[in-house]
């Protein structure tokens, strides 16, 4: 099984403040990696590096064996915060359709196939009924679900999710978990979440990131070991060094 994503000795700093420190990570096909860690631990930064939105100070990142910028369209991404102008005149449907960019023909409008996929993505996150609404007229959780639908519409081979269920109500949260579970059969996923319960239920591997990354390596984590890991979730996630985590294991 070839590695889809490899990070070799990746470091990154903003303004000389080190954020990531010699991070090594390999993600194989069908992995479902959960990343947990304290606020400011560098989780979002790691995703942005994998997407090629940021460039590592040292080390190397390859995705599908290539430079991240060359394979962008094969990845789907749900950002932690929407980066768009919230007053922009655009409907939910048009937003979700934008996930098709890079997959569909490059000239002229979207075709039927794109629309079908967008509809399916919206159905999966239960925003179908909102599709004609303006993005401005959504509640926080509705907007978040539209962003997930947009990422699904990309038909990505790898899906990167940065706290996708923040602001989402438990019912929809639950159905998003189920959705990710289903998707996991065909898509490789990286999920950042503070929702310990969810992470423990769904992912196959967990990485703890707080400047340095501790990955609970290649053997899929079974439910027991996850439960063990999170028996005292707060202290685990708040470990400041490698050691404290390993103590817990």
């Amino acid at each position: 099984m070839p590695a889809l994503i490899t990070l070799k000795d990746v470091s990154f700093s903003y303004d000389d403040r080190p954020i990531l420190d010699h991070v090594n990570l390999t993600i194989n096909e069908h992995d479902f990696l959960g990343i947990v860690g304290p606020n400011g631990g560098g989780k979002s930064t790691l995703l942005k590096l994998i997407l090629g939105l940021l460039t590592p100070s040292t080390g190397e990142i390859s995705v599908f064996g290539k430079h991240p910028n060359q394979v962008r369209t094969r990845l789907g991404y749900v950002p932690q915060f929407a980066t768009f102008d919230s007053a922009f005149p655009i409907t939910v449907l048009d937003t979700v359709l934008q996930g098709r960019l890079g997959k569909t023909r490059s000239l002229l409008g979207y075709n039927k196939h794109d629309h079908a996929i967008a509809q399916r993505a919206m159905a999966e996150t239960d925003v179908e009924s909102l599709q004609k609404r303006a993005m401005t007229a959504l509640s926080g959780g509705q907007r978040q679900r539209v962003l997930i639908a947009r990422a699904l519409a990309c038909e990505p081979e790898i899906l990167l999710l940065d706290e996708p269920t923040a602001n989402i109500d438990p019912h929809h949260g639950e159905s998003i978990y189920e959705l990710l579970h289903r998707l996991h059969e065909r898509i490789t996923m990286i999920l950042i979440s503070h929702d310990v319960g969810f992470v423990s239920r769904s992912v196959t591997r967990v990485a703890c990131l707080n400047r340095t990354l501790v990955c609970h390596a290649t053997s899929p984590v079974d439910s027991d070991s996850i439960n063990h890991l999170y028996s005292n979730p707060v202290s685990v996630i708040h470990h400041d060094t490698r050691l404290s985590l390993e103590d817990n294991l």
Partner: protein
Amino acid sequence: MSFFNALLEHTFLQHALFGGLLASLACGVIGSFVVVRRIGYMAGGIAHAILGGMGIAYFLGQQPMSGALISALIAAVIISRVSRVSKHGHHQEDTIISALWAVGMSIGIIFIAKTPGYNVDLMSYLFGNVLMISANDLLLIGLLDGGVLLFTLIYFKQLLALCYDPEFAGLRGIRIEWLNTLLLCMVAITVVILIQIVGLILVIAMLTLPAATARLHATTMLGMMILATALGMMITSGGLLISYNYDLPTGATTALSSGILYLVAALIPQRRHAVK
């Protein structure tokens, strides 16, 4: 003589009418981008920035208008390029446009000062007049319309993504720098061409105000473009009619109407309960 009789009789009125209608189309489409990208500043800025190119062209003994076009394109490229590298990835085009306004106009003035035997009022090139549109001008606006429509039609989905969420658009493999540059060049060309045909004030008014008015009511870009074009057409023909009947300057009357329309529309309380 009533306006309609006059219209039948005078080709200049016919040209003004058609010119206005044609210009409304280009302005409605390009203006919608201008408004959502918040670069309403662009028309005024480019208009003054091109003085630099005109000054240099004159110095070199070339046609000022070719200098204007080239410098407008250069300005568009610079705006796109600078906003790209700006610290937070946010577009703060208003500052870059100010910089180009100052730089362009300064270069123009310096070249004027340093050109021996200089005797052209470059500013006069900025003031076209809608009553003095020639058949050639009509053709030119028609071509502009064609170019704008073609460009928008072909790249509509990419342009929409670019304006809405550049980061995401980039992740979907769109070459956003390139497309952004193309869009700004389109704006620059529209501004340069229309300025010398209908004049600076009218370009500023037509490029931003119908689209801004449309935005108050449209929920999609496409709707906004169509509404903006329709409003523009109403305004230009209405402006012509009013200015004829009340013996007022046409350009100013039209610009005034569009400004008032926008301000009134913006001040009318929206149907929803306004956020305080």
